[in-house]
């Protein structure tokens, strides 16, 4: 069945716009990258490499999910056959635990107008204190003992030099469970007629040669109503 003019125009529009809608074909080496930071790392650098297989690829904007991550881009427009890379630097600051940061690209690719590049980092605590917050309800005749676990989550040898409180109404005793696990027994001892403390800080201090950025750690004890 021969097509009439209108049908020809319709087909022309359909097939004519197809290449535009397809956009550039880009192959990414690794859109998600995982890192395991050491206790002394201050930043993590991730390089996202790509290859433009066909058409022109334009990165219109580049932003990050956090002010702690900066990016570096060589140029914005890449022709077919060109390779490119985006370097992202995540400043770890005082962050701990599992962290995910994103680099978000706006592109000219209608199929993938927004591309998310992911940096996942596990940052060791060095000394993990759980929990860091204890509380007792005011007005008891005696206050029960509560416990804080101190766990070392790095391979390096870490030694605890001292554990102290800033308040004589709070007693703290430390025992070693395993070479990387200590337990603090914490108990308020309020003398008769004494006004209980509102807040007390427990300070855990490591030896000066401990291979960690932080040498002092804190936990908090409160009296609540």
């Amino acid at each position, binding site marked *: 069945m021969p097509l*009439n003019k*209108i*049908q020809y125009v*319709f087909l022309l529009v359909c097939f004519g716009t197809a290449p535009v809608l397809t956009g550039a074909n880009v192959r990414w080496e690794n859109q998600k990258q995982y890192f395991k930071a050491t206790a002394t790392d201050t930043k993590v650098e991730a390089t996202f490499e790509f290859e433009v297989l066909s058409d022109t690829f334009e990165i219109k904007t580049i932003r990050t*999910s*956090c*002010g*702690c991550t900066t990016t570096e881009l060589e140029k914005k427009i890449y022709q077919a056959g060109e390779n490119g890379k985006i370097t992202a630097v995540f400043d770890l*600051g*005082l*962050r*701990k*635990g599992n*962290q*995910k940061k994103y680099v*978000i690209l706006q592109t000219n690719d209608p199929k993938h107008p927004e591309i998310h590049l992911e940096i996942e980092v596990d940052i060791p*605590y060095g000394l*993990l*204190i*759980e*929990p*860091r*917050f*204890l*509380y007792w*309800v005011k007005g008891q005749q005696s206050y029960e003992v509560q416990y804080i676990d101190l766990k070392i989550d790095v391979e390096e040898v870490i030694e605890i030099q001292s554990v102290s409180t800033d308040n004589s109404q709070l007693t703290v005793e430390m025992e070693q469970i395993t070479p990387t696990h200590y337990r603090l027994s914490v108990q308020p001892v309020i003398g008769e007629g004494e006004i209980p403390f*509102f*807040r007390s*800080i427990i300070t855990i201090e490591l030896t000066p040669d401990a291979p960690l950025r932080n040498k002092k750690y*804190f936990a*908090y004890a*409160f009296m*609540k*109503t």
Partner: protein
Amino acid sequence: MMNFRCIGFFLIPLVLGLLSMAYHPKEARWSPPPLAPGEITYRDAAALESTIWVDARKDEVFEKGSYPEAINLNHDNFENQLPELLGFWQPGDVVVVFCDSLSCDESHLIADRLRGEVGLEDVLVLYGGWSSMKKGLGR
């Protein structure tokens, strides 16, 4: 005859498209996505009896304006800011953490630290963050 064929050529895909839009099993609905575990909407959080609002954004952003009575607690200053939150907190309080909008993840990270490291039990993340709060406050 030719006219009917022309009309049919355009009309049939149009009708099929409309039918698909109306009855497709994976039809997109104009409702907010379901909340992830540990998230709460602003409307529900504002209705709680005792809520502590925690703003997980950076100090300089917090200082430009935040929710009334919100406490600032972010990664950069976590150690210095944590005691203030713990001082305010009372047994039974629900801590609701927020950051800028849906696209930020700081509120989730701070909430995780409060639950795991600090040991607070009732910690939720505000769905939509500060953007949803501003709408709620009519700003």
